[in-house]
């Protein structure tokens, strides 16, 4: 025969075992980690900042060259001094980034440990209230803590499940947005229809302008022409590298989101790590390009 105390201990043990099993089951579900989703969110914000900088410098360069052409014309028309990246279209890019940014922020909130913690605290309060009201309804006072932990994990799992479900809904759109953006920038500076191709054509024009200058002068006067030519070549290479890196960051953001939608933490981890490195490199290249431009001026 079991004593009453031994029976109570056994019942408490069984309850813990049941809760433990449920906790393991919940914890075994596919999860995405908040730091990675937050890193994706930060990657989106950083890519937007880098794109803004890149677009502004492209428009500045095009305008300067358009002015050089316009002053040779018999009259001036609006289309002679165009902004290649017009304000309406840039605003559409901005809106797309703003929406993805907001969505990523909400995903981060959804899997925030704070939600689960709040629910756990509320659950513990409920368990304590039940225990106070009816001391026999719970086998052990400490069980309310386990009950709270179970509640916390349930909410955590719900948050992660819902985050992955939302990511699945968003993914086709996100893939299209990022792949379109990457295509606009271009895989190489030779690519038809790419911004990199357009940018290269401007540097080529500027460098060839120096080559024409070179033929018009002799001797020592050629030194400054050659120096300017080299400076332009360095700027061309720096800007193209910057755009190439930016394109790669955008493609990796797409890869990261794809991993998020699949609930694949491993792929998400590696994509997020790459994004961070590439955005750091893009930022460094942008600064290098700006310093070269300042030296040129």
């Amino acid at each position, binding site marked *: 025969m079991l004593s009453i105390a031994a029976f109570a201990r056994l019942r408490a043990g069984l309850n813990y075992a049941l809760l433990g099993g449920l906790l393991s089951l919940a914890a075994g579900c596919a999860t995405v980690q908040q730091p990675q989703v937050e890193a994706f969110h930060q990657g989106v914000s950083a890519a937007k900042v880098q794109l803004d900088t890149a677009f502004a410098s492209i428009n500045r360069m095009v305008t300067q060259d358009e002015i050089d052409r316009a002053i040779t014309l018999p009259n001036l028309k609006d289309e002679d001094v165009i902004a290649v990246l017009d304000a309406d279209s840039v605003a559409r890019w901005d809106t*797309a980034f703003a929406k993805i940014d907001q969505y990523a922020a909400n995903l981060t909130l*959804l899997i925030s440990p704070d939600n689960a913690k709040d629910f756990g605290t509320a659950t513990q309060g409920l368990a304590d209230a039940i225990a106070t009201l009816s001391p026999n309804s719970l086998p052990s006072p400490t069980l309310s803590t386990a009950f709270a932990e179970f509640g916390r994990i349930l909410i955590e799992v719900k948050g992660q499940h819902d985050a992955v479900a939302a990511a699945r809904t*968003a993914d086709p759109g996100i893939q299209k947005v990022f792949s379109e953006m990457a295509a606009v920038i271009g895989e190489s500076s030779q690519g038809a229809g790419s911004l990199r191709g357009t940018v290269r054509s401007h540097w080529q024009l500027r460098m060839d302008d120096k080559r024409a200058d070179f033929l018009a002068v002799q001797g020592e006067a050629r030194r400054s022409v050659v120096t300017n030519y080299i400076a332009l070549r360095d700027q061309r290479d720096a800007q193209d590298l910057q755009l190439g890196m930016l394109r790669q960051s955008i493609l990796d953001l797409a890869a990261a989101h794809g991993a998020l939608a699949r609930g694949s933490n491993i792929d998400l981890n590696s994509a997020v790590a790459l994004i961070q490195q590439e955005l750091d490199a893009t930022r460094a290249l942008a600064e290098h390009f700006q310093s070269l431009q300042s030296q040129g001026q």
Partner: protein
Amino acid sequence: MLPARLPSISSRCNPRGNDMANTDLTANADLKSMHGDLLALNQKLSNSLDDITDAAMARAVVTEMREIVHRIDLIQGLLFAASAKKISDAVKAVDQANQQALKSLDQIKTVTGVVRTVSGVLTLVDKAIDIAKTLAIA
């Protein structure tokens, strides 16, 4: 040699006007192809400078390149506007997912609120029972 001012590409392609909304994939592919042709032509003119030693001739080539680059800009502008439209269309799926995430956040807040309310009610019931016990003893 190109004329000083080529017929306007924008007048043929109607940049950023209402017609832009109707620009189909074929038109974009044509623009992309034209952009590629102009990039190649620009490169060819640049390469021709390798063999030119006359300053005036080199300057004439650069002037032609300037005209070509202007047209590259015009086409790039059209392509950029078309891609921005595609991006706007694609981002609608993100709106839907955002609503989904917000709904889930609301559910979590609601269920947490319900549990807190029930705890509060039970605490009140507990106090009422204590008072009832006190009154019964009295």
